[in-house]
């Protein structure tokens, strides 16, 4: 008589187990934000932000509208300085080195810390060219088709587009376009991808597809995602940061910790009020 699995529970296969490998208890930080202040001209949008973002983990940034979430992620790859009057004080260390230090090439930096935006923004070009674009910009040569295929596969889009790579990217659905933008970001093999509300323009099914993708990618890439959807933050992230505005409308970090703790037993009453929908 077979006694094992007598409850007839589905067995975890090795392939399944490989999807979420046991992670080391103390993750290594890849980005360390130290006493960061971000300004738009005179106005301070972020104050005294210090936090470490962990390698090959998903970190979610949540908080009410206008608290500086977008500003924060844009500070992480120096896109903030592209807004008028945008400047910072403090440090953002990427692998131990201050990205605001002299001699850092922002374009090079952005190839290592890529970004995906709220609205899918493919170029009015073919699917193939959209993905190949980043390679060109960054002067990456070699087998482009191979790289494009690899990126599309990693973005879980390959099977849907492999027969029509020459078609315009604008013919794809919103969800497909967003995965294409993720493929485009992946093409240059970044170590970190910043995502600012990547699902807000997508329907629920496309949203779930992108969330699956984020979890999958987090085995190789560090992902930092801004989201207004608390359930989404709870589903996809390993760590969650909650930002709020002070009286001067400057965003500050209220709480940052493992997602499971933030959503079951937050330390701050402000976090509690926000995630239970009783924020005033």
């Amino acid at each position, binding site marked *: 008589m077979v006694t094992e699995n007598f409850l007839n529970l589905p067995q975890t296969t090795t392939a399944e187990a490989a999807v979420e490998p046991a992670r080391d208890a103390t993750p290594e930080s890849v980005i360390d934000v130290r006493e960061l202040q971000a300004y738009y001209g005179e106005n301070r949008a972020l104050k005294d932000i210090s936090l470490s973002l962990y390698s090959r983990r998903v970190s979610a940034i949540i908080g009410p509208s206008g608290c500086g979430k977008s500003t924060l992620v844009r500070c992480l790859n120096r896109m903030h300085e592209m807004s008028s009057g945008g400047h910072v004080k403090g440090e953002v260390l990427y692998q131990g080195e201050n990205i605001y230090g002299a001699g850092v090439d922002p374009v090079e930096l952005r190839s290592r810390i890529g970004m995906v935006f709220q609205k899918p923004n493919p170029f009015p070009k073919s699917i193939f060219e959209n993905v190949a674009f980043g390679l060109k910009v960054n002067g990456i040569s070699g087998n482009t088709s191979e790289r494009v295929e690899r990126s599309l596969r990693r973005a879980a889009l390959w099977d849907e587009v492999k027969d029509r790579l020459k078609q315009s990217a604008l013919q794809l659905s919103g969800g497909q376009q967003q995965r294409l933008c993720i493929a485009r970001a992946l093409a240059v093999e970044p170590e970190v991808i910043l995502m600012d509300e990547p699902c807000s323009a997508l329907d629920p099914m496309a949203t779930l597809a992108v969330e699956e993708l984020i979890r999958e990618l987090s085995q190789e890439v560090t992902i930092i995602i801004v989201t207004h959807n*608390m*359930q989404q933050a*709870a589903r996809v992230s390993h760590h969650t940061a909650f930002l709020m505005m002070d009286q001067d409308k400057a965003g500050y970090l209220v709480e940052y910790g493992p997602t499971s703790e933030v*959503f*079951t*037993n*937050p330390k701050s009453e402000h*976090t*509690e009020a926000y*995630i*239970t*929908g*009783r*924020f*005033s």
Partner: protein
Amino acid sequence: MVRTDFDRHLRMLQSDLLILGSMVEKAIAKSLDALKRRDAEGARQVIREDDFIDSKRYNLEEQCIELIATQQPMAGDLRSIITMLHIAVELERMGDYAEGIAKICLMMEGEPPLKPLIDLPRMSEMVTDMLRRSLDSLVHRDTVAALAVCNDDDDVDALYDQVYRELIFFMVQDTNSIQRATYLLWVAHDLERIADRATNIAERVIFMVTGKMTEINVSRY
């Protein structure tokens, strides 16, 4: 922002839970009363009414599941709902012990009384008091009161010990008493289990308030 509708549902859930609590409290008291007065009809009533307790528990469970599915509760809200779900189950099991006592009552029908019952009614008062206070600690989100309930379990255990020794003494003295003494021992055991479940409720309340899952008082039985 306020969540009027959700908060109303949470309050309803809690008041339904308190109703279940008082149904169980009454069942325990009635079963002991039936035992004391050798009242078979009273015992049968406890057994019949256990069905109401069961269906109230299922109704509470359904409410909890529906709130989780429709409101996506987080943090303190989530802990409250999960806590009430657990408490509903604990209460229903306590009701089963009361039903068990009522059944023993029927088994003892026609047998001469072994002795006047003093300690068992006392034990019953202690456990219903623990039950009441565990639910009060829920209502007031009071961890100190919850902890006190957990600590009272030791007193019930001590009384159980005493009843046990006394009943063994009866059995040793007079083999004719073995049957009846065994029945009464079962009653004492059921009451001891009820106290244990009251401490489970109190532990859940502490979890709900603090987010920490701990076993406060490991019962000796």
